Every structure is written in C-alpha cells, then in structure tokens.
C-alpha cells in the first residue's frame, strides 16, 4: 500500500526552480533512497515534501490525504517526520528533553515511546540528562532520529544522515535506519553515500539537475554500470 505519493513536483528558492517535475512513491515498510550528485535537488525534494518549501507545481499525498502546501507543524501531526541534515538537535537541551520536544504535540502519556527510543538507541539512555551540545556527531544523529520518531510516524524523511560522520559510525547509522524500518516506518533517505544506502534500500531514485533520471530497485541500480559510472562515482 502506498503511504507517500509525490507527483510532478516543481519547486525551488526565489525565482529559480531547483526541482523540476519529480514524481516518486513510497510503499508501506519500504526504504527509498534519493541519490545523485551535489546540487541535484535531493534536499530540496525532501523540504518540499515536508512543506518547508512551497511547491510551484504538483502535489504531495500522505496516506491518501493531500498535504501539498501544508506547513511542517501540520504535516508532522499527520504522521510524517523529518530529520534535517544540519542543526537537527536542540544543543542546549538534554537528550531526554530533545525527545520530549519531538513529542510536543502529544497530549497522552508517551513514556512507553520514550522507552522504545532508548531500546532502539541504548547509548542514549545512560546519557539522557546530558546536554546534546556536548555529544559526538553520531550520538547527535541518533538523538535527531529519536526526536523525529517520538510521534510514531508512518513516514520518516532523512536528509543525509551519514554526512560528516566517521566511516565506522556511517555503518552504525545505516543499521539503525534498517532497525527503524523494521518497526514499521517507511523511510525516504537522501544520501551522498550512494552505494551503502542502496544496499539497504528497496528502491532508489537518481536525481540530476533537478530531474529524476533513473529509478529501480536498489540492487538493480548497484548492478547498472552506466548509472554507476555517471552517478555513483565509478
């Protein structure tokens, strides 16, 4: 079943269109990766899906409900969360407070969810009263993902979760993404680290110059020599 549908999306900053006529879909329990060179419009696509940028054309549908043009704080209530690439934590708040902020719109008792997050990221539990500003990059990324998961979303959007992490941590973050996916969250992940991402993805979309130029299963893209040469760096 389809949980997210993007159709003919065109958007950008100011007068220029960064993203042109991009369509994609995400099924339940799927991981779809968006790959492509710098400036291809990958982050712009995520920002437009999440309502941070208003599309000039096209629509976004979440679980059969059109959410095009809604603001992020409305979209987050409808079951989709977003982790920005940078500045994705509240540095002066503790780990626990960061997670609580992710649950801001919840009025019920969310202690169970908090516990689930600490089960998913055991490293965070012992440090839950530490300020996030003092954590390492990998730990911050876990806090950022935990924050986004507090509302128990159906869809999670991740913008370059492995950017600026040490190789060992990259592997760990990808494992976490698979773990999150196993709990029933469909994921769209934008990545520079294309090969690693495709390995864990059901499908991949290749973006170039703001257009979708290729789409296939993760495995097929990895085996496609031409795509490999053009977009995955040989």
């Amino acid at each position, binding site marked *: 079943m389809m949980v997210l549908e993007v159709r003919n999306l065109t958007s950008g900053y100011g007068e220029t269109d960064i993203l042109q006529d991009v369509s994609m879909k995400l099924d339940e329990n799927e991981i779809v990766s968006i790959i492509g060179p710098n400036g291809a419009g990958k982050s712009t696509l995520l920002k437009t899906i999440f309502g941070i940028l208003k599309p000039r054309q096209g629509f976004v549908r979440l679980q059969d409900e059109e959410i095009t043009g809604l603001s992020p*704080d409305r979209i987050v*209530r409808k079951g989709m969360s977003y982790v920005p690439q940078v500045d994705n934590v509240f540095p002066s708040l503790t780990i626990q407070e960061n997670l609580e902020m992710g649950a801001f719109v919840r009025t019920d008792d969310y202690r169970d969810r908090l516990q689930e997050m600490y089960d998913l990221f055991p490293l965070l539990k012992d440090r839950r009263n530490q300020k996030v500003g003092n954590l390492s990059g990998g730990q911050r990324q876990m806090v950022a993902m935990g924050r986004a998961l507090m509302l128990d979303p159906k869809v999670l959007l991740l913008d370059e979760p492995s950017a600026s992490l040490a190789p060992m941590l990259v592997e760990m973050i990808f494992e976490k993404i698979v773990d999150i996916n196993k709990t029933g969250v469909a994921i769209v992940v934008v990545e520079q680290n294309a090969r690693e991402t495709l390995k864990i993805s059901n499908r991949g979309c290749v973006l170039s110059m703001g257009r979708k130029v290729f789409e296939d299963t993760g495995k097929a893209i990895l085996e496609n020599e031409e795509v490999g040469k053009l977009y995955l760096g040989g």
Partner: protein
Amino acid sequence: MPELIVYGIVLGSIIALGAIGLTLVYGILRFANFAHGDLLTTGAYIALFLVTGLFPWLGIPDTTFGSLSFGWRMALAFPIAMVCVAMASILFDRILYRPLRKKRSGPVIMAMSALGASFIIRMIVLILWGADSLFYRPGVLRPAIELPLEIKIRPDQILILLTVLSLVVILYLFLQRTKMGKAMRATADNIELARVSGIDTERVIIWTWGIGGALAAAGGVLYGIDVQLHPYMGWNFLLPLFAATILGGIGNMYGALIGGLIMGVAQQVSTAYLLPTYKPAIAFIVMILILLFRPRGIFGGRRA
C-alpha cells in the same frame, strides 16, 4: 564600600529582571527590543495609577506592612501591573512586530520600529503623568536597618531582593520543568527545528513576550519603590539592560541575571569615585573589558 556593593546588588537585581526579558525575546526572535526599557516604565506607572488612583477610590485602605513603605495597595498593584504589561507586550507583538516578521523585515527595521514604539510609550506616560519625578508614597524614608560592616539597608530593599529572587526561581522552574518552558528553550535554540517538531512557535512567542513584559513590569515597580518614578526611568535603564544581556551571553537567561548584578554593582561602586552622571559610562567600560576577554559574554551564547 560594602554598603555600595549591597545597593549595587539591589539595583542589579532590578536590571536583571529587565535583562532576562530582553534576552528571552532576543534568543527567540533575534530582535533587539529597544522598547524593553519602556516596559519597565509602563509597569511602574500602571502600579502608580492603581496605588494612588483606583485603589483609594475602591476604598482599599492605605496600610503599610511592618516597617515597609507600602501595604495591601502595592501588594495588589504589583501582580496586576505585571499582568497588564505582559498583555501590552503581547499586543505590541501582534500589531507591530508580528506583521513585520511576516514580511521578513530586516533587523534594522525591527529595531527602528521598537525604537518608535518606545517613544510612543514614553510620550503617553508624559501626557498622562507629566515630566516630574513621582513617588508611590511621598514622605520620609523609613529608618534603615543596620547590618555589620556599617551597611545600612532599608526594609524595602530587602524585600526587593527577595522578590527578585523568587521571580527568578519561579522562572527557572518554569523553564526547566514545564512543557512550555522547555519548548521556549528549544525554540531559542533552533526555531526551524522547533517548527519541524510540531512545536507551536507562535504560542511560544506569545509566552516569551508575556514573561518578558511581566518581568519588566516587576523591575519597574521595584525601582519605583526603591527610588522614584520618572517617564525616562526605563529609557535610562536601556543601556545597562543591553550591557547586562550582552555580558551574560545573548539568549542566556542565567547570564543576564549575573550580567545585571555586575552592572548594578559596577555602577553603584563607581559613585564612590566619580559623579553619578558617569554611571552609564562605567557600565560600558565594564562590558567592553569583559567582552575583550570573553567575546561571547561570560557564559557564552550567541555573538552580539
């Protein structure tokens, strides 16, 4: 000298109340509110209207508590003034700053409109109450209590310190323990991420103005009790308020508190050597000296 330090702490605690509000608003809206000093004035004069106008008319008796210079009238006027100024600051945000924010006006335009707002407030006070200094209770000063080290302190001043202390503790608990308090800190950290997390940042902004306004009103009334009321009292506080805010690290509430105390003490102690007219200059010399060594303020924070 010890006496001047104690007076400095009293003055500093009043500056701190204003500076905390200023730093909260700056932290969230990145906006230097030049009208913040005049919120102190507004609070002080609202309390004056209640104490000398409305309450006598309502027949609330003119008592005094023990050896303090005020009684029930002021005890009632104080919280009412805080609520009124809180609402006034929220109103100012709605009709002035919010529309400008929506238009994405630059920091200079925002600061200039705040400056305009400050003139409007001051002129209204001048029209209604005139340009003279006024007192909540004219008459002789209450006898001072003698403390060791030849410190003479009035009972009013002790109560001022206790009031500031309890307001700061309440604010601390609010920011650390309540959902809205945490959301305020989160929004000050990163307003974009707060929106993305579903935090209602408009409500956070309303709370921020409300708290900033209420604390400013408290500062104004306390200064009125300690010294006197004057239409320019808040305006004259503006420079030490900003100095205290920058000194403590912009956006850092605890820094503003310490910054305010340092400003108060530095200003009062300077009167032992210099004419009181130089007080504001002293505030700035201290600020510049500290910033030379700690460019982000004593406790860090955003760049000024």
